[in-house]
């Protein structure tokens, strides 16, 4: 469950949202500059709204009136950024282990490596990865942080066709297996159809509508054929 009710200003741009969704996986959809990524950053704690509340699965992450603002490091969210943002001086293995809680079992590491097909990459440095591989490592790293929810910022952007299909397939698998609350930022209808249960349409910092994904699919019929989903 995702409840966002806040106002955020960045220079000239103002983002005002009142969004309550019961969906497990909610997509924020809209053109560039509509405030999707700012919304995701506000949920992650990287941007602080001027007023309002941010609640995920009944956990209050930010509440201006009550002076609550859980620091980024303690929000326990798995964030996958648009750029993979892997740490260049660490191996893939150390990148993956970076956010793992100390007491977590090595089985979790092995499971994530298996799930995302990362075994052959563990000893590489990020500079030795292709775009799709780097994105998969970033997803694995976010999962191993043992998050309570996932935040995905355009997880398929800037990938060539094959890498896109490869990462999309992994994300679909995760959606099935983990059933975790997910906030997805996207401007690609096929990505939204494959990964979201509901779609919040944003334009110029305002919420236009929240649709079930089937309804969104009817509005973007061409993409259904492409992905063959649902």
């Amino acid at each position, binding site marked *: 469950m995702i409840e966002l009710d806040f106002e955020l200003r960045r220079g000239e741009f103002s983002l005002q949202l009142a969004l309550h969704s019961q969906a497990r996986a909610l997509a924020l959809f809209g053109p560039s500059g509509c405030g999707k990524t700012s919304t995701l950053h506000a949920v992650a704690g990287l941007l602080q709204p001027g007023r309002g509340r941010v609640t995920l699965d009944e956990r209050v992450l930010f509440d201006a009136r009550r002076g609550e603002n859980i620091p*980024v490091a303690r929000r326990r969210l798995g964030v996958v950024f648009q750029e993979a943002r892997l740490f260049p001086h660490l191996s893939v293995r150390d990148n993956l282990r970076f956010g793992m809680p100390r007491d977590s079992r090595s089985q979790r590491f092995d499971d994530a490596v298996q799930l995302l097909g990362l075994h052959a990459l563990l000893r590489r440095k990020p500079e*030795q990865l292709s775009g799709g591989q780097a994105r998969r490592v970033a997803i694995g790293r976010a999962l191993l942080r043992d998050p309570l929810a996932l935040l995905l910022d355009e997880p398929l952007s800037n990938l060539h066709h094959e890498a896109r299909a490869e990462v999309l397939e992994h994300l679909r698998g995760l959606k099935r297996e983990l059933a975790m609350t997910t906030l997805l930022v996207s401007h690609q209808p096929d990505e939204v159809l494959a990964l979201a249960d509901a779609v919040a349409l944003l334009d110029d910092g305002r919420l236009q509508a929240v649709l079930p994904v089937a309804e969104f699919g009817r509005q973007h019929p061409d993409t259904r054929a492409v992905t063959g989903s649902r």
Partner: protein
Amino acid sequence: MALLAQDETVALALSLKVAAVAVACSLPPAIACAWLLARKRFFGKPLLETLLLLPLILPPVVTGYLLLGWFGHRGPIGRVLDALHMSVAFRWTGAALAAGVMAFPLLVVSLRSAFEAVDRKLEQAAATLGAGAWRVFLRITLPMSLPGLAAGLALAFARAFGEFGATITFVSSIPGETRTLPIALYELLETPGGESGALRLTWVAIGVALCATLAATWLLRRPRKTEFEA
């Protein structure tokens, strides 16, 4: 036959010790100041920047005179140190203090640019993975700044090794205690028949400076890209 006369060897050893201690002791405060300047905005920042750079701009004799005023036997800090039996006036520790003060701005400047070169997006990513400010600094910012840090250390060492004006003003020239290599060289030039000794020390000084500069250049070169493993 020894390459250097005994008092020249003593001066060289003292200079190496003074420079090493000066740089080692300046490093922690330099890291703190550089991080503050690179990462924080606060009231009085331009003033702090100017104050930190002052030893680079002031004539070294002025710096030495100020040190004498504060840390000398009659100075406010000097009296406290005397009471604690930790006097630095006319001792090698005073020479290290003078060299440290002169080298400090170089360390701050190199470290600051090294910290600024670290992509803040990586620090944000580390925070979303649960790392607090200290962990972000120790695992991301500092390791990624290591070439800049090492180059700064080499430059600061060379500067401390060559310190003359502030040292002679503050702690005078006491053989085996405060007569560092540059001071010994100067005194040899003032002594009839001292030219050959001065020449030997000149070559030593050139050698140390070259080593430090080469070390800085070598450490600052871009790491070689590893071959992409297919």
